[in-house]
């Protein structure tokens, strides 16, 4: 069902495009040798180049270029063998050069696409318009002094990738799915850590509304939204606001807006904004960036299996549902963990365990995957015990809890607690005989046609064997004996 905003004049469609700014993982900055580490003392990670001292010149970081190419390949995009860095000119206190070095007419990455994983395992392909490399700005701190702002240039010049989507998204959920998938891909590639709370990923949100089938409406751009939830809120708020404006006979002004996380609203920055004219031109301190196609091929060869391919393989090779596979491939560690668990045997059972009890336990104890007390190999060991009938599924849950407490192997726990499943017919038959002898009326009722009573007999037998009897075998033997 498509997402629609209901207005007084009918339903409206929302059109969303996202510009994601992602901090590139690199040791040093885009054009200087200063560190990119988060959280240093003010202006400590600033070189003379970053501070735009007179006569300082930029030199391009090879690793950042490589990361850019890698990201482009991960977004199934065209890699432009020639790209040009340009200057975007504007004044701001945390922009020491008076311009941002960015790419404009000739970006390093051209058209690509990304697959959204939607609810219920559905997917949809969204176009990527382009991706370019650019410098981050510094930080202005406004709350330290009554009449002054303080400027910290530590972030100045850190490399960013700006990924621009086509206006292909149609709902807050899709916008969220886009960002989650983008983050997942960047993390798989190791090109951005995706930590939105540290500002390493943020989005500018372009929203417009229209009556289904109409031309695109005028859009607004909500800048620098720094969480997926906020992006979804911003979309929803903007869509509703625009519908109201239009239905009240107003017009949407193409403008920049700011998101207010305290109440999920956006507000116009128009009053602060004068007509921008960035006067882009090729940076004369830099030369055209020309890539050796061999280098691009080498990078391509080093790209790991990405979530979409992994998901497909999990579905095909392991027989998983699209939904389960989707959950398992969201990040690489998770997928690797799952694959390790499957070595214990049945991949479907493994998927149920990983997405069910295991993730549940992680969640409950507030741990990350890296902090798990039960390793993938151990979980695989537990599943192997289920598969070879050493323990029952129900017992397995008890064993898992003990493993979580103690980090011991499943074998050890089964051994210690004596939980090994009884698969000998002898003891089970003996128990059944005893129960039948003690409950002749039930036996009679069953034989008289009350077949539901089988459940009662199973329960009694399991109770008698301390829950260790192999349930399949109990069933089989009961049926035989009760049938007389």
């Amino acid at each position, binding site marked *: 069902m498509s997402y629609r905003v209901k207005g007084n004049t009918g339903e409206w469609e929302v059109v969303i495009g996202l510009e994601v700014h992602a901090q590139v993982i*690199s*040791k*040093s900055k885009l054009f*200087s*040798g*200063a*560190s990119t580490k988060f959280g240093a*003392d*003010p*202006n*400590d*990670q*600033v*070189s*003379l*180049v*970053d*501070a735009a001292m007179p006569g300082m010149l930029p*030199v*391009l*970081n*090879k*690793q*950042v*270029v490589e990361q850019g190419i890698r990201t482009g390949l991960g977004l199934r995009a065209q890699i432009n063998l020639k790209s*040009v*860095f340009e200057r975007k000119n504007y*004044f701001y*206190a945390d922009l020491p050069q008076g311009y941002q070095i960015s790419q404009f007419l000739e970006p390093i990455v051209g058209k690509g696409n990304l697959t959204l994983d939607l609810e219920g395992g559905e997917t949809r392909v969204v176009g990527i318009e382009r991706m370019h490399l650019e410098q981050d700005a510094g930080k*202005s*701190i*406004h709350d*330290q*002094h*009554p*009449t*002054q*702002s*303080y*400027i*910290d*240039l530590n972030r100045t010049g850190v490399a960013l990738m700006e990924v621009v989507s086509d206006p292909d998204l149609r709902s807050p959920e899709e916008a969220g799915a886009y960002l989650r998938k983008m983050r997942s891909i960047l993390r798989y590639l190791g090109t951005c850590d995706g930590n939105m709370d540290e500002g390493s990923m943020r989005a500018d949100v372009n929203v417009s509304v229209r009556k289904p089938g109409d031309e695109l409406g005028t859009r607004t751009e909500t800048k620098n939204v720094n969480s997926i939830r906020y992006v979804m809120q911003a979309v929803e708020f903007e869509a509703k606001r625009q519908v109201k404006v239009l239905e009240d006979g107003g017009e949407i002004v193409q403008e920049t807006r700011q998101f207010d996380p305290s109440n999920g609203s956006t507000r116009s920055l128009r009053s*602060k904004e*004068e*007509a921008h*004219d960035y*006067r882009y031109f*090729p940076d*004369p301190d*830099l*030369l*055209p*960036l*020309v890539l050796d196609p061999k280098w691009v091929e080498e990078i391509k060869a080093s790209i790991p299996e990405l979530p979409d391919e992994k998901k497909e393989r999990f579905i095909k090779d392991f027989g998983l549902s699209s939904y389960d596979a989707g959950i398992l491939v969201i990040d690489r560690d998770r997928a690797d963990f799952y694959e390790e668990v499957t070595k214990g045997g049945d991949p479907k059972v493994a998927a149920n365990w990983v997405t069910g009890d295991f993730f549940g336990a992680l969640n409950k104890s507030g741990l990350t995957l890296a902090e798990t007390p039960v390793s993938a190999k151990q979980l695989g060991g537990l599943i192997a015990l289920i598969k070879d009938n050493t323990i029952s599924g129900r017992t397995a849950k008890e064993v898992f809890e003990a493993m979580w407490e103690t980090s011991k192997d499943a074998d050890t726990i089964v051994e210690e607690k004596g939980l090994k499943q009884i698969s000998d017919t002898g003891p089970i038959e003996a128990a059944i005989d005893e129960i039948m002898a003690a409950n002749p009326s039930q036996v009679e009722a069953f034989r008289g046609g009350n077949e539901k009573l089988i459940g009662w007999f199973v329960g009694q037998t399991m109770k008698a064997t301390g829950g260790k009897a192999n349930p399949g075998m109990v069933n089989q033997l009961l049926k035989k004996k009760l049938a007389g």
Partner: protein
Amino acid sequence: MSVDKKTVAKIAKLARIRVDEEQQEALSGELNQILGWIEQLSELDTEGVEPMTSVVSMTQPLREDVVNDGHYVDQVTKNAPESAHGFFAVPKVIE
């Protein structure tokens, strides 16, 4: 084309150079004179000519990703008209 006082005011604002009302007139005259002279380029047909990006027939050299700079906040702020606690200080920016 001609640069009027309003345009002078606009580009002066973009360039963050304060130009008083009375200077705008004079500047508009000077800029028009220069731009008028520059305009002779329009008589030259440059159809199909690639705009030059650099006279150096090289491509962009790349630097290894090594941290070898920074950690000298005293040098960075040494010449600052105003600084505090390692920060540069500027008139308060109201967002």
